[in-house]
């Protein structure tokens, strides 16, 4: 097998050196009662070419292919990825290295991460960003747990029901074994979170709001920050579409204490949901409560600038059960990918691209409205919005699929009473002609 360099002669020589007769003697410490007594039953080893055929057959089972325009976002966004990114991200010095515990030998990864942290902090308007969490959902859970750590004695957190349903599920999963209580805040007619109930809540360590939220609606973060700080809670802002901050106010400037979300939009393919990138940052004063790895600048013996993993006393390999999180391996190369993407776009490009997403999304919004559909929420949105159809949309959706357009995500299973409501997403990848086809089909 091409991955296994051992020749029979090599093996014999090594047996002799070790002083054994065969492989069995290497495993004498494995009791019979623990032995795998049969042969593993797996498909026979495939050559590279048979593997290609096999995987091609699996791919051919996809009924939605790259030929389709998928007007669904909801946490995974279809953005163009420049060919430079796979080519530099794929350099084996980056891809086949591990956690930079030996900094002198990993300055590439480390400077790259430091740059990511900095660009991310600037994007989100926070003082410090870490070197990634698993994804936006687990990042939100960690954000709320961090809020509880900061707040010490408090036992409750609140989160908006306009947060991505899957993210809320993950939060509940993380919280299940704990004594902490989760309060869900309803949303208003206009699609924004209803904060009116907050004032009466006590013992709340942190309140989480997503903006743009699951409905694509831009929340009023300043007002939220005020209300949340009123009750002495930390303001955790989540997001699923970081591109929005090229156009919208960033959460930090609006008063968020902790900002966490998903970074897939920045150079990562949708890849059926992963790998993506948990972006995570906070105000400086909470840095020692941050989960995840941090890269810091330092100097070497001769005073040259260099980068190292730092504040490790927060982490499991030093602090063990007292760590701020259990995370060890993180999203590594995805983090670098996001930095490469941000660097490729630049400030000017990010602005332009965000604006383009907004304009195209507004175009479809208005078109559908004119076509007789209802735009459910009046509040401003970024590149997603909820549409309600007067009559059954499924036949239209079917017709559009036949035209290679996947039109909207049905919200019925996410929110009661949303049976005829759909979440649409429009990015720079959707051409006007595609949007027009959707509009005209709705019109019919």
């Amino acid at each position, binding site marked *: *097998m091409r991955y296994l360099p*051992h020749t029979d002669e090599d093996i014999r020589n090594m047996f002799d050196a070790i002083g054994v007769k065969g*492989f069995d003697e*290497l495993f004498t410490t*494995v*009791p019979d009662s*623990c032995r795998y007594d049969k*042969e*593993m039953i797996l498909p*026979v*080893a495939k050559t590279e070419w048979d593997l290609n055929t096999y995987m091609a057959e*699996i*791919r051919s089972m*996809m*009924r*939605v292919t790259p030929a389709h325009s*998928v007007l669904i976002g909801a*946490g995974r966004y279809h953005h163009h990825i420049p060919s*430079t990114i*796979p080519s530099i991200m794929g350099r*084996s010095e980056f*891809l086949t*290295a591990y956690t*930079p*515990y*030996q900094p*002198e*030998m*990993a300055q590439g*990864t480390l*400077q790259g991460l430091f740059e990511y942290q*900095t660009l991310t902090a600037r*994007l989100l308007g926070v*003082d410090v960003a870490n070197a990634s969490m*698993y*994804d936006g959902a687990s990042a939100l859970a960690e954000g709320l747990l961090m809020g509880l750590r900061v707040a010490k004695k408090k036992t409750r957190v609140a989160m908006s029901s306009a947060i991505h349903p899957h993210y809320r599920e*993950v939060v*509940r*999963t993380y919280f299940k*074994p704990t004594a902490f209580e989760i309060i869900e805040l309803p949303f208003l007619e206009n699609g924004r979170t209803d904060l009116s109930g907050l004032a009466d809540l006590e013992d709340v360590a942190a309140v989480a709001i997503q903006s743009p939220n699951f409905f694509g609606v831009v929340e009023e973060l300043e007002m939220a920050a005020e209300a949340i700080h009123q009750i002495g809670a930390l303001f955790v802002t989540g997001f699923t579409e970081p591109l929005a*901050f090229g156009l919208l106010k960033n959460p930090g400037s609006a008063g968020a204490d902790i900002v966490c979300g998903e970074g897939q939009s920045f150079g990562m393919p949708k890849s*059926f949901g*992963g*790998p993506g990138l948990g972006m995570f940052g906070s105000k400086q004063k909470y840095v020692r409560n941050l989960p995840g790895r941090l890269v810091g600048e330092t100097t*070497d*013996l001769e005073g040259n600038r260099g980068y190292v993993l*730092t504040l490790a006393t927060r982490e499991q390999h030093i602090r063990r059960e007292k760590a701020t999180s259990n995370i*060890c*391996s*993180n*999203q*590594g190369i995805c983090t670098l990918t996001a930095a490469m993407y941000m660097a*490729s776009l*630049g*400030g*000017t490009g*990010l602005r332009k691209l965000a604006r*383009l997403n*907004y304009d195209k999304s507004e*175009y479809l919004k208005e078109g559908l409205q004119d076509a007789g559909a209802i735009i459910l929420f009046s509040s401003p949105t970024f590149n997603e919005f909820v549409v309600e159809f007067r009559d059954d949309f499924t036949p239209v959706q079917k017709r559009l699929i036949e035209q290679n357009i996947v039109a909207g995500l049905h919200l019925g299973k996410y929110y009661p009473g949303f049976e005829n409501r759909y979440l649409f997403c429009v990015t720079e990848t959707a051409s006007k002609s595609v949007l027009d086809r959707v509009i005209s089909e709705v019109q019919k």
Partner: protein
Amino acid sequence: MKNGPGRSGLIMDEPLLWEKGKKGRNGMSIPESDVPAAKIADEICGAGPDFPDLSEVEVVRHYTRLSQWNFGVDTGMYPLGSCTMKYNPKINEKQAAAEEISGAHPLLDDEYCQGTLRIIYELQNFLAEITGLDAVSVQPAAGAHGELAGMLIFDAYHRSKGQKRTKILMPDTAHGTNPASAALCGYKPVPIQSGPKGILDVEQIRELMDEETAGIMITNPNTLGLFEENIGEIAEIVHEKGGLVYGDGANMNAVMGIVDLKKCGVDVLHLNLHKTFSTPHGGGGPGAGPVCVVGKLKKYLPSPRVEFDGANYRQEESPDSIGRMHGFHGNYGVLVRALSYILSMGAENLKKVSQYAVLNASYIKVKLKDYLHLAYDRPCMHEAVFSDKNQHKDNVNTLDIAKRLMDCGYHPPTIYFPLVVPGAIMIEPTETESLEEIDAFIDVVKNIVNEAKSDPELLRSSPNRFKVKRLDETQAARNPCLCG
């Protein structure tokens, strides 16, 4: 080459991104708008972040140069203990990058994404077969995430019995993620010293295991590279007290086709696909940490899982599930790579992987034990744990040895872990290293041991071949600069 393959050559300096560029440049295409500009309310508009503007070639050179400062498995031997830095096949990258897969949206209805679901389904089954356990969820995004899933399953199981247990047995050799994951579920780790042989002794477990204790977390082979021989008996004790046995499968590379975890008495196990199953470590990730369980715990696995009804692949939720661990299906792209690896290897080669991994480690153990102090002189599995004990007299420590190895062209082993071995030097060669590579590495280590006597200062002043000399980590932590 008794000094190894390390040499000095030209590399390029490169400033930070924002020390480059000029406003107005761009590094990628942005489509012209084909729709009218829409109105937008000023109050929601921000200024946009202060990012540098770079041309495409500036971006490409920036990262090409940064990459020159890195060392990966493709550069050379990377015997980082407990991390299984084996060769990462290129063909796996190609499979994961195929557009139908990398372009698939995770919220498509099942009928539209049978291909991507099938990949999950097959991987679930193959991993069950390899571990001997009954059911698998591939949702956890890394090993620690899998541990958390496992602890949540522990909690759900005990709650189903109307109990809320508060403690968990934690061997002192456990990886830091183990106690950290347990703590997230409110379990208080009860430390267990490994016995004189470097493995758990039954009596201690018998003493400490009780009805308040949820169970035990065992890494097997453990982080000393030793097989926990008493795992069966230990499992019995734990089970008798109504507890569960968690297996940390990070070291599965040693025992594929050789050990049946179910027969060991393990109830829940996580795997690290980025270790055992050859997916690239990416400078820290992404990984994948599938969690495998015995039949009675299947219903607790994270949801959704993929089932096959003979005609179609379907995503299924279990009412008793601990719930979602991840926004979607976990680090899916990593799953594709792991499947690609398993399909390339087949059962026979996977068993060879473990045999050769153990062969390589055992060979290193034998060849180096007269030079570096061997923590436990017993048959090792996939890694051998030494220490700097013999070098203390030369005032040379593990870190010095590690830094010197770098100059010689090797990534250092894992150091100062496991904690039970002071100054630990944990060497895991993996099966993809050839005998010649390993012999060369051995010669270099021997040579360094001699240098520790003849020229200790050389080691203390290492490394010397890199863009930077030894970096000051204390300063970095004392006044952190985390943002440029």
